[in-house]
């Protein structure tokens, strides 16, 4: 029986079988390279302390296929990864997404987590399109597979200084002293470091009288605010996340710390849960952050789709920059016509998008994979809404400065 079976497979049959197998195997391979659909790994903090923000970012990604599909961009398939707001998990999840077939990764909101994902993408030769992460060294380490359309810490701080100068000049009210309150994580230290280094360079009219780093997992912020109060600053500069921003605002009001203004360069102070939790006390805060520009057609398209899909939720930089990251992928895939990593990498390098959703001239990467200048806006909370007040070309309202005292609201 055994010999019969063996003899039944002749050399000619074997050769034919091998040839057929090779042909069959080559079909999906070629199909994979010239695919009509790209698999995009979306890596975000969907659980843990940054879950709210991660989910907001995901919402930006969720409206992209519909908006971009209507504009002729190719189909995308998302594979979702959760960093759990942890750097080590971000690394493991990036590997998992690549193992699951992701041709490109978008993420990962947080600087530390994005750094971890970037290391994996470099090892595996898979493009990482950063949605949000400000740490400068991400695009200074010579990485070949990392592309970022988001400002670095110094860019955010530099634009914040420029917008502040305009704000002070137009309002005629200039603070002479500022306290810096910042979250003590990769993002917070990166931004506060840039701020401290650049303040003299930009010849700002104020002195930073106190620098207060705080625990990102803190609960009670009364001591932090007490320290601010003791320094007697005229204005507060905050680099925070969401829950800490809410708690800090409550303490500022309860401890009767009246300031000329609160300036933020980070998330938290403009987000929906913040506005809901703080009500009238959240008004007048100015966030000096990258933002959406509704004077652009793509931003209006995104807003229309977003309102249908997520009624009652605001669009912030979280949604805007994640949408733009997906747009970058869709655009590169469309031009490359292939999911091959090197083809996508080459297409990403030659990205030239002017119709995106966020403030600025558009998206073009330099040799480091960084958009050289991603401008920031000044966004002020007014009656529970976020309004761009600076720069003038993107502004939809005049700024209120100094802010109204707590007891007069």
């Amino acid at each position, binding site marked *: 029986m055994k010999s019969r079976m063996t003899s039944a497979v002749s050399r000619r049959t074997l050769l034919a079988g091998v040839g057929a197998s090779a042909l069959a195997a080559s079909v999906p391979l070629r199909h994979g390279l010239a695919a009509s659909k790209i698999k995009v790994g979306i890596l975000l903090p969907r*659980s843990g302390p940054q879950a709210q923000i991660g989910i907001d970012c995901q919402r930006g990604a969720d409206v992209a296929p519909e908006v971009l599909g209507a504009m002729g961009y190719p189909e995308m398939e998302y594979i979702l990864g959760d960093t759990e707001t942890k750097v080590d998990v971000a690394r493991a999840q990036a590997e998992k997404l690549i193992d699951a077939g992701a041709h490109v990764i978008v993420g990962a909101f947080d600087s530390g987590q994005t750094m971890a994902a970037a290391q994996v993408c470099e090892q595996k030769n898979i493009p990482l399109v950063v949605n949000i992460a400000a740490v400068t060294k991400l695009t200074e380490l010579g990485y070949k597979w990392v592309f970022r359309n988001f400002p670095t810490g110094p860019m955010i701080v530099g634009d914040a200084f420029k917008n502040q100068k305009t704000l002070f000049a137009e309002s005629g009210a200039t603070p002479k002293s500022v306290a810096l309150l910042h979250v003590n994580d990769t993002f917070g230290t990166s931004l506060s470091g840039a701020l401290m280094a650049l303040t003299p360079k930009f010849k700002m009219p104020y002195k930073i009288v106190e620098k207060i780093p*705080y625990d990102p997992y803190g609960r009670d912020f009364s001591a*932090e605010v007490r320290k601010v109060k003791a320094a007697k600053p005229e204005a507060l500069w905050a680099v925070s996340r969401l829950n800490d921003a809410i708690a800090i605002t409550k303490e500022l009001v309860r401890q009767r710390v009246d300031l000329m203004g609160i300036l933020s360069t980070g998330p938290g102070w403009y987000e929906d849960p913040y506005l809901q939790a703080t009500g009238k006390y959240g008004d007048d805060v100015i966030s000096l952050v990258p933002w959406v520009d509704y004077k652009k057609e793509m931003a209006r398209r995104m807003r229309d789709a977003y309102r249908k899909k997520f009624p009652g939720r605001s669009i912030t930089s979280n949604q805007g920059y994640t949408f733009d990251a997906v747009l970058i992928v869709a655009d590169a895939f469309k031009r490359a016509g292939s999911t091959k990593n090197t083809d996508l990498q080459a297409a990403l390098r030659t990205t030239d998008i002017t119709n995106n959703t966020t403030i600025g001239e558009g998206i073009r990467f330099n040799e480091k994979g960084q958009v050289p200048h991603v401008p920031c806006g000044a966004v002020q909370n007014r009656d529970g809404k976020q309004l761009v007040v600076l720069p003038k070309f993107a502004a939809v309202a005049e700024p209120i400065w100094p802010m109204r005292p707590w007891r007069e609201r």
Partner: protein
Amino acid sequence: MDPWTLANAVVSGLLIGLVYGLSALGLSVIFGVIRIVNFAHGEIMVVGMFFALLMFRWLGLDPLLSVPLAAAAMFGFGYVLQLIVVSRVSHLPEHMQFLLLAAIAIMIVSALLLVFGPDAQGVHVGYAWDSVAFGELIVDYPKMFAAVAAIVVAALLLAFFKYTTTGKAIRACADNRMGAQVVGLNVGQLYALTFGIGAACLGAAGAIILLLFEVHPYLAPGYTLLAFVIVIVGGLGSLFGALVGGILIGVSEALAAVLFQPSMKSAFSFALLILVLLLRPQGLLGKAVR
């Protein structure tokens, strides 16, 4: 350093420490009697916070008025949990008990996420933003009311264990389980009652803490860790020790923040923990195990 800044820090630390102490009482009660370390401690408290949040949304109840309701609801949860689940692993090695309670903790967080989502949510009571000033000393109303509520609940609990028959029976179980069985006490029921009381403490603490902080499902692990630090400092199994531990941690964190850096707060808590473990391993008010 301005003395008023220090005074403000001490008062604030004291008030918040009392609330922390109440939350740690739940852990101490359960461990002191059943000898099970409740790794779902913070999660049960966060359920209490969400319960109070729903009471506020549905009935307009101030979280302080929700305290008895949250305590009752969590008592039921704890009672059933001990009777149906935890009691079945009480004879197993400790690491298996830890795993079971850690699994329950994960399930609670997942369920809360499904129901409430990840957003921070809070209550808007009329006095949420108000404070009273005594010269330069400013005390905010929510913290003051929360501390008073914590004292009342802790006093009721201590009185229950000291003066009621059931409380004495539970203490008898804690002192000598075999002896309690010999004299005819229903140890299984008393254990369920104890777990229920521990969970009720957490429900009450959750409702009170909702007055101070926003709630979201991921708050829990931080509170579990905090409770462990407090009860180890105060003395595992000592009810009064949990309150003292809470105050010590609250005040030391507040002072660390104003004297050094706010980011040093946790480091100070853990430094205190290490110091206590080195110098008095049974905790400040705990009994030494021979």
